[in-house]
């Protein structure tokens, strides 16, 4: 199932993944660039809202516009939308941590 989820992620949800990666970069840049943490509360809330809006919008678009065309295709692979979006959110969390780690490593190296 994991390989199928990866394939679905790569072939069908590239744009969503890239958009979320962009938001993750923004979040990491906020954390790294801060001087007075209390000044950045609004920005952190913005990041959380962007993530929530991204996923909420994607789920709505998927269910309203794409489900008729590809929901059964995914289901024939044994994958429901719960699996797919659960996987997307999980991968996104991993990418966020990785982005933070890579940023720190590169910053320390420089």
């Amino acid at each position: 199932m994991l390989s199928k989820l990866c394939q679905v992620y790569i072939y069908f949800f590239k744009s969503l993944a890239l958009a979320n990666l962009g938001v993750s970069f923004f979040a990491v840049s906020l954390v790294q660039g801060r001087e007075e943490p209390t000044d950045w509360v609004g920005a952190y809330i913005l990041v959380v809202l962007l993530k929530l809006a991204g996923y909420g919008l994607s789920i709505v678009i998927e269910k309203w516009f794409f489900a008729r065309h590809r929901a059964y295709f995914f289901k024939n692979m044994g994958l429901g939308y719960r699996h797919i979006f659960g996987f997307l959110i999980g991968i996104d969390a991993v990418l966020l941590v990785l982005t933070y780690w890579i940023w720190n490593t590169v910053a320390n190296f420089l």
Partner: protein
Amino acid sequence: MEHGGQLFVDSVACRYGTKMVLSGVYVSCRRGEVVGLLGRNGAGKSSLMKVIFGGRKAFYKHCELDGKLFQTGYRTGSIAYLTQEPLVPSYVTVRLATKLCVGTYRDELLAIPVVSENLGKRMGALSGGVRRVVETLIVLYSDASYVLLDEPFANLAPVYIDEINNHVEKLRNRKGFIITDHYYDRIWDISDRIVLIHNGCNYQIESREDLYTHGYIPSSALG
């Protein structure tokens, strides 16, 4: 009661709004068996298949696969379903669709001319008939042990209908099939037994006279 070695679905109740479409419907299919599912338009054939596959919620259902209870057919990985509408998105190539949906029998599938000749093409670039055949073959050759085919012959040339029937015959000893279509002659030829959905219930059909009795075919069709 044990129902091992088969797809067993019982007491299916399904409704659209206040209209009860299926009420206490029972259907079973063993591996190696082809079950023909007939019924008028709107009788609930597609709804029954969707309920089994997990694409539609039922008011009530009891489903067993090889003796084990299940709620959502597609999650078992042992049930494949060909929808009435195009199954594979238009922008997906035949190669990618076969890669994603077919495992064990992929070499056999790729040896079929109508598939191999169109591997690089997007599904949307194929003619309606060829697209239907390719989608049907992808579902037939998937790893699932039970295959639900919803109107696989719709808009197909007779030569393609024969081709699909030949592949069902070829795979018959490995899988179980539930097929519904309005080409009832074709369904009759290929099926081991026929089930008719009528008035929300199922009827075991023994002869063509039964189909006439239940109002599925006109008297002129009895010959």
